C-alpha cells in the first residue's frame, strides 16, 4: 500500500484523510444518514427516525440494520460438546453436537458463545476477509462487487475483530483502505445522478455505501427542489398517499 493511493483521491487539499479523521468523518455521515438529520436544504420532512446502525465494533441493540447484519453466518468449529442440541446440526442424527463439528452459525450466536480462551467455539474468517481477497482489495477496491461479497462487508468486517484473530490489524486496515478507495466514486455518482435510474450505480455497493448513496441523492433532490422554488411547497405526507394506494389495490383484488 503506497502513498500514491492517497494522492489519487483529489479532494479539497485541506481535507486530508488521516486515519482518525476518516473514522470521525464516516461516523458523522453515518449518524446523519441514519437519523435523517440532514442539512437545512432537506425538504423531505421525515419524522420517522429509525435507530441507526452502530459505529465500528459496537452494535446498536435496537438497530434493525444491526439485527440484520448479525444474522450473517460465519464458518465455526465447536471446541466442546453441546449435549442435547444435536437437532441444530441438520446433517447429523446424534442427540449431541460433538466437539470439532464444523458449522455455520450466525454472528449473534458466535459473539455470544465465543470466549477468549477458546473453550467453546472457534471462528474462522470468511473468505472475503482473508489474505487472498485482501490482496485483491489492495490492488483495486473499486472493481469488487461488495453486494455479492457482503452485503455487509464493512459491518461484518468490523464485527469480526471481536474474535481475536491474529490477522485483526490487517483486516481492519483492509476494510478501512477499501472504504477510502471506493468512497469517492459513491459520493460522485450520488451527487450527479438526478432523476435517473440508479440501479446500475448501486448494484455493486454494500449496505453502508448504499446508505451513503441514498443520503447523497436525498441532498441532491432537496437542493434541486429548492432551486426550482419548491422549498416551501406543502405536500401530502407520504404515509398517507401510500395507504390510499394500498386501499385501491385491496379493492381491486
Amino acid at each position, binding site marked *: 500500500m503506497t502513498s500514491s493511493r492517497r494522492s489519487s483521491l483529489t479532494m479539497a487539499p485541506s481535507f486530508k484523510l488521516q486515519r482518525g479523521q476518516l473514522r470521525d468523518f464516516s461516523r458523522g455521515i453515518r449518524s446523519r444518514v441514519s437519523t435523517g438529520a440532514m442539512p437545512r436544504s432537506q*425538504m423531505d*420532512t*421525515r*419524522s*420517522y*427516525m*429509525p*435507530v441507526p446502525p452502530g459505529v465500528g465494533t459496537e452494535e446498536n*441493540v*435496537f*438497530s*434493525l440494520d444491526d*439485527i440484520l447484519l448479525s444474522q450473517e453466518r460465519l464458518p465455526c468449529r465447536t471446541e*466442546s*460438546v*453441546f*449435549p*442435547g*442440541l444435536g437437532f441444530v446440526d441438520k446433517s447429523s442424527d446424534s442427540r449431541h453436537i460433538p466437539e470439532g463439528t464444523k458449522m455455520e452459525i450466525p454472528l*449473534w*450466536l458466535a459473539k*455470544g*458463545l465465543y470466549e477468549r480462551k477458546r473453550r*467453546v467455539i472457534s471462528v474462522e474468517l470468511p473468505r472475503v476477509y482473508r489474505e487472498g481477497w485482501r490482496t485483491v482489495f489492495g490492488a483495486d477496491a473499486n472493481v469488487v462487487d461488495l453486494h455479492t461479497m457482503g452485503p455487509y462487508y464493512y459491518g461484518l468486517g468490523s464485527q469480526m475483530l471481536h474474535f481475536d484473530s491474529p490477522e485483526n490489524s490487517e483486516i481492519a486496515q483492509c476494510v478501512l483502505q477499501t472504504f477510502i478507495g471506493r468512497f469517492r466514486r459513491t459520493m460522485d455518482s450520488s451527487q450527479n445522478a438526478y432523476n435517473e435510474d440508479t440501479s446500475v450505480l448501486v448494484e455493486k455497493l454494500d449496505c453502508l455505501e448504499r446508505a451513503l448513496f441514498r443520503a447523497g441523492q436525498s441532498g441532491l433532490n432537496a437542493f434541486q427542489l429548492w432551486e426550482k*422554488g*419548491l*422549498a*416551501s*411547497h*406543502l*405536500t*401530502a*405526507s*407520504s*404515509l*398517507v*398517499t*401510500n*395507504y*390510499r394506494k394500498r*386501499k385501491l389495490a385491496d379493492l381491486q383484488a
Partner: protein
Amino acid sequence: MSDGQLPAFNEDGIRQVLEEMKALYEQNQSDVNEAKTEGKSELIPSIKFRHCCLLRNQRCITAYLYDRLLRIRALRWEYGSVLPTTIRFHMCAEEVEWFNQYKKSLASYMRSLGGEEGLDITQDMKPPKSLYIEVRCLKDHGEFEIDDGTVILLKKNSQHFLPRWKCEQLIRQGVLEHVIS
C-alpha cells in the same frame, strides 16, 4: 418498510417467539438445576447456547416494538392527532394507548411554549413564504370555517385562496393540494 409505513401488528409472530422463549427458558432451568445438583458442568455450553437464543429473541422483539413506536410517533407529526381507521386497525391496543399518551404529552408541551396561547410546533414544517396559499380540493370534505367566520364548501376540484395555517394539516392528510402558479 424503510419508508416509515406502519404494517399490521404481528400478533401471531410475537406469540410464537414468546412460546419459543418459554420453552428455551424451561429447558435451561432444568439443565441448570441438573448441573448444580449433579455437578454436570458439561451442560454449560448448551445452557450458554440457549441463553444466547433467549437474548436474541428478546432483542428482536424489543427492537420490533420500539421501531413501531417510532413509526407511530411519526404519524402524529406527519398526519395529525386523529388517525384514519385504516391505520388504527394496524395498531394493537397498547400502541393506541401509547399514541394517546404521546398526544397528551405533546399537547401539554406545546401549551407551555409561547406565552398564553401556546405554540403549535407541528405547523410550518417547511419555511412559509406567504400568509395565504392557493389550494385545490382533492376530495369532498364538507364545510370548512375560517377565522373571520366565513364558511367554505370543500368540494372536489374546487380551488380556494386560504390562510396557510388553516390548510397545512388538510394538505398533509391529502384532502387539499397546494397549487403553485
